[in-house]
């Protein structure tokens, strides 16, 4: 019975997205086939998959470089969020001001930050990391601040135990915020990949996905470009999967039904 309900759970959870994706691919494939669309304009899904497989090791190398830049930027943004939110959450006024600025900064487009960052860091990895950090910080900060500013009856417990700031933060505030931190990472990690690829597209290290997409696109190598786009999608999904696994590890103290 338990095994059966687990099966039903996975079928009902996985079937809709798989079905939707299959329908989408079928429509795409049929459209290219019946309309006889040139590969330069739009390659069919099976050709894109073929390109992805045949060029796998090169794409893999570029994807690792892109992942490195995105990961450093994401880490820096998370660290910055933890430090700034950690030192301001107890002041409602200050954290309120920063919250408003972060909400505004979320609307800042990557293309607008790019020229500013290249002035300071030149064209290369440093600039890309800076762009990712600036782009991700407002998202992470809002999640982390919301987690830190949370209130529960445990605060009264800490008060009754006459706990100092350090113990309150380490034993209560930080672990209580883990679910917010993880939600922030789930939202930020794929965005960090997108920002990295966009920034690389405008000018980054040659051996990265964004730069490769730009190069192949300007040479009208549409199939190679689509192969790289597929690699970017796989990378985004892999990063999201990793964050979900980390989330599961840190959430072991929650009941399974949560």
């Amino acid at each position, binding site marked *: 019975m338990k095994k059966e309900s687990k099966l039903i759970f996975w079928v009902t959870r996985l079937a809709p997205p798989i079905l939707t994706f299959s329908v989408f691919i079928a429509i795409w494939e049929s459209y290219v086939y019946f309309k006889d669309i040139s590969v330069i304009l739009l390659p069919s899904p099976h050709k894109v998959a073929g390109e992805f497989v045949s060029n796998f090791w090169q794409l893999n190398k570029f994807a690792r470089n892109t992942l490195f830049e995105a990961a450093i930027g994401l880490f820096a943004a998370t660290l910055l969020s933890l430090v700034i939110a950690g030192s301001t959450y107890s002041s409602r006024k200050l954290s309120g001001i920063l919250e408003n600025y972060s909400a505004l900064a979320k609307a800042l487009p990557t293309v607008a930050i790019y020229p500013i960052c290249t002035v300071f860091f030149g064209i290369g990895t440093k600039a890309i990391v800076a762009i990712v950090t600036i782009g991700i910080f407002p998202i992470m900060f809002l999640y982390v601040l919301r987690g830190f500013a949370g209130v529960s*009856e445990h605060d009264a417990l800490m008060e009754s*135990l006459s706990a100092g700031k350090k*113990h309150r933060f380490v034993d209560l505030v930080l672990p209580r915020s883990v679910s917010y931190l993880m939600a922030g990472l789930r939202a930020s990690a794929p965005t960090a990949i997108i920002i990295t690829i966009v920034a690389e597209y405008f000018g980054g290290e040659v051996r990265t996905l964004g730069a490769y997409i730009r190069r192949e696109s300007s040479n009208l190598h549409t199939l190679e470009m689509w192969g790289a786009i597929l690699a970017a999608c796989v990378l985004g999904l892999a990063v999201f999967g990793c964050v979900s696994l980390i989330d599961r590890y840190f959430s072991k103290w929650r*009941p399974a039904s949560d």
Partner: protein
Amino acid sequence: MSNEIGLEAIGVSKIFDTPTGTLLAVDDVNLKVPAGEFISVIGPSGCGKSTLLRMFADLDSPTTGSLNVANLPSSEARIQRKYAFVFQAPTLLPWKSVLKNVALPLKIMGKGKEEREKVAKEMIHLVGLEGFENRLPWQLSGGMQQRVSIARALTVRPPVLLMDEPFGALDEITRDRMNQELVNLRATQHQTVMFITHSISEAVFLSDRVVVMSARPGRIIADIEIDLPEPRTAESRLHPNFSAHVTAIRGYLVDAYNAPQK
């Protein structure tokens, strides 16, 4: 019992500011509890019992009057950890094991890992939860969680225990068992206890004294000595004095409920 004061409230009142104006929650409460005495406070919902307890714990401040805990002003008693507070909900940290939850007050006091684990294990044994040290709170029943929170309160061996309806969410059978366990614990620990409850029989069974509060604003309308033979056991509930006290307190409570609230 010694002549030392366990708990003392002198002319305590509490006014809350609400969106519709001020609300007098507690009105001129005077109370003296000798060290080592178990006192229960009972009264209608919203009469200010928990507010009074939280003021003793320095979690709320009185508008007028003063409160002393273990011969110290309540703020000083909190800083010196002269009391432990047991909340209505167990308030266990869900990411910490039973052992780490029980050891938390000692960790905050800066005790070493070895010492705090030794004391925590003793307290876990005292509340009958050996073997559950490494479980997480969600893996325990409500009664077991509350026993963990009592063990946590006892780790610092405080002279005063402040308990805010700790068994309010438990079923009747578990509640009776927890009452008996609390009586047994007290026989070895001898703290001053202030216990908030809605249950008349629980108050009579556990206490040396029961204080009845009026409907809002909360005032003390009766202060009853409970003379039941010691030690308290399940048979104590069959003693003629038990039912006499229950009937008397019920009478005061009916009057309190019928009185118009301000």
